[in-house]
């Protein structure tokens, strides 16, 4: 009987454990709406781009419908006078106007009606593009709203030269790799990170290593880290930061190494941190894609 008495609480505990397991799953599902949200927003932008495509298609259709006349017009165009920022319809009209004599009356009529339709389409396009840019700038505002741990950055390289947040402003993208000396997968990717640094240098990117053992200018740790870096042929910059700084706290919270993050020109972290070494080709490709998108976004902002 007594054993049964102990059984019952054990079974209840067991049930409780299963319940906690369920709440764990609950947590996972609560995260899902976020995913679907981002999906939804990409869908929305997808929509606008499809309507944009539609509108451009309509314009092309107009040109195709009266192919003969329009080809005549295009032949008269002077590429150097083309001004992409100006109104396309005005541009077309002026081209037609300056070469009036070359067209018959019928031709001129079709051209002017076509130009008017194009003018309307252009207005719609302008509206959609305006919306997109405002939403983009809103996103950018969101990013700057949350304080990045790399906004006020200070550190030292292993030769003792101090570095501040200008480290980031000089490049479109900075790849920060967090590692520690005793971490085998971290060491395994060092040579690949060096390759990456060479590859993105010309694109306006740089790889920075932060070894969590070298915090606060710990000299023995820096020596060990430097020796490991040299043995792996890694020549990119490694920095020692203060454990109490924002960046130091960010690094101390990392629990899986190696972790690699991307930081933009303004010191903002872009995207999610990547776990695992880039000596794995899939990881390398994913990271490269993200780097490319940060660089693209940077050049778009200029």
């Amino acid at each position, binding site marked *: 009987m007594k054993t049964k008495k102990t059984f019952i609480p*054990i079974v209840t505990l067991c049930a409780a454990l299963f319940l906690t397991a369920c709440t764990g799953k609950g947590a996972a599902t609560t995260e899902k709406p976020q995913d679907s949200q981002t999906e939804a927003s990409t869908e929305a932008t997808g929509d606008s781009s499809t309507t944009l495509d539609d509108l451009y298609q309509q314009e092309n259709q107009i040109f195709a419908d009266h192919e003969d006349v329009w080809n005549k017009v295009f032949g008269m165009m002077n590429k150097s006078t083309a001004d992409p920022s100006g109104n396309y319809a005005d541009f077309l009209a002026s081209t037609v106007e300056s070469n009036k004599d070359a067209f018959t009356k019928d031709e001129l009529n079709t051209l002017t009606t076509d130009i008017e339709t194009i003018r309307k389409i252009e207005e719609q396009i302008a509206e959609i593009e305006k919306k997109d840019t405002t939403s983009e700038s809103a996103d950018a505002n969101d990013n700057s709203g949350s304080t990045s741990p790399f906004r006020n950055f200070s550190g030292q390289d292993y030769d003792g030269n101090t570095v501040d947040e200008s480290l980031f402003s000089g490049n479109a993208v900075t790849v920060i790799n967090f590692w520690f000396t005793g971490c085998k997968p971290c060491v395994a990717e060092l040579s690949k990170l060096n390759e990456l640094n060479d590859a993105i240098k010309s694109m306006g990117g740089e790889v920075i290593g932060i070894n969590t053992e070298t915090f606060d200018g710990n000299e023995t740790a820096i020596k060990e880290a430097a020796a490991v870096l040299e043995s792996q042929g890694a020549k990119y910059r490694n920095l020692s930061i203060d454990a109490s700084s924002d960046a130091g706290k960010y690094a101390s919270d990392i629990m899986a190494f190696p972790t690699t993050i991307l930081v933009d020109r303004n010191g903002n972290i872009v995207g999610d941190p990547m776990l695992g070494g880039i000596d794995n080709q899939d990881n390398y490709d994913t990271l490269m894609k993200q780097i490319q998108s940060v660089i693209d976004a940077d050049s778009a902002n200029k």
Partner: protein
Amino acid sequence: MDKKKKSLSQKTARIRGWIQAAATLLTNIHIPNLFKGKIYQGKAKTVCVPGLNCYSCPAATGACPIGAFQAVVGSSKFKFTYYITGFFILLGVLLGRFICGFLCPFGWFQDLLHKIPGKKFSTARLKPLRYLKYIILVVFVILLPMLMTNSIGMGDPFFCKYICPQGVLEGAIPLSIGNPAIRSALGKLFSFKCLILITVIVLSILFYRPFCKWICPLGAIYSLFNKVSLLSIRVDGSKCVGCNQCVKACKMDVDVCKTPNHPECIRCGACIKACPKDAIHYQFLGGACQQKEDSRKPQSTDNN
């Protein structure tokens, strides 16, 4: 019709489930972390816990001794770990596989699984598989991390990386639920180890503690100390009537009367509970004390 008072040994054996629950809670004290998908990384993580309990469990209080052993042995700085070896010897000499029976969270997990009703199978015919855990200890915990190293002498924690189901159960699964970055990093290795975990779970329902018997390198280490550990099980020859109830009750396939301190004994106390004559009990500090106890014990029980 006088009711016999339960001996301390019997009481201990009866509340084993509670002790296991408490030990599991103490080795995984940071419960809120389970929902955050973070692991505790404070100072206490430099200390080992006695049982097999993954360092990467979000709730874990300390480090897994088997994981720590591999990490140190496999690092380029050290060739051998005196701290953790000393820890094994200390706990082994003090408690032996009492740790498996009472303190190990993964042992408790298997105990609970075995309570799921259904057909149960005996492992008595599978005794040779017991030696597998010693092979795993030598090969995966000691030799491979020590010898399979990269150019600067760093090895992988092979047991943790390729075998340990506790790591998946406590580490990978809760972390990947709570942490999207880790979830995105899961790959084939995770699937493989999930398969191991599922196998262990299914086997645990059918057999009693298959992981402890056949796989666990930590159990293998503690088993070496079972014969000399200060905490031991003693069969009182003068009381034993040779009914063999203890042998029948033993789920670790130990012949209790002949070898009460067999390496496979996890001190679960099933034999103590089963003995109709109260001839089996735990004792701390054997040898010399045992003789005195013998002379005193009959008198004291008579007085009761």
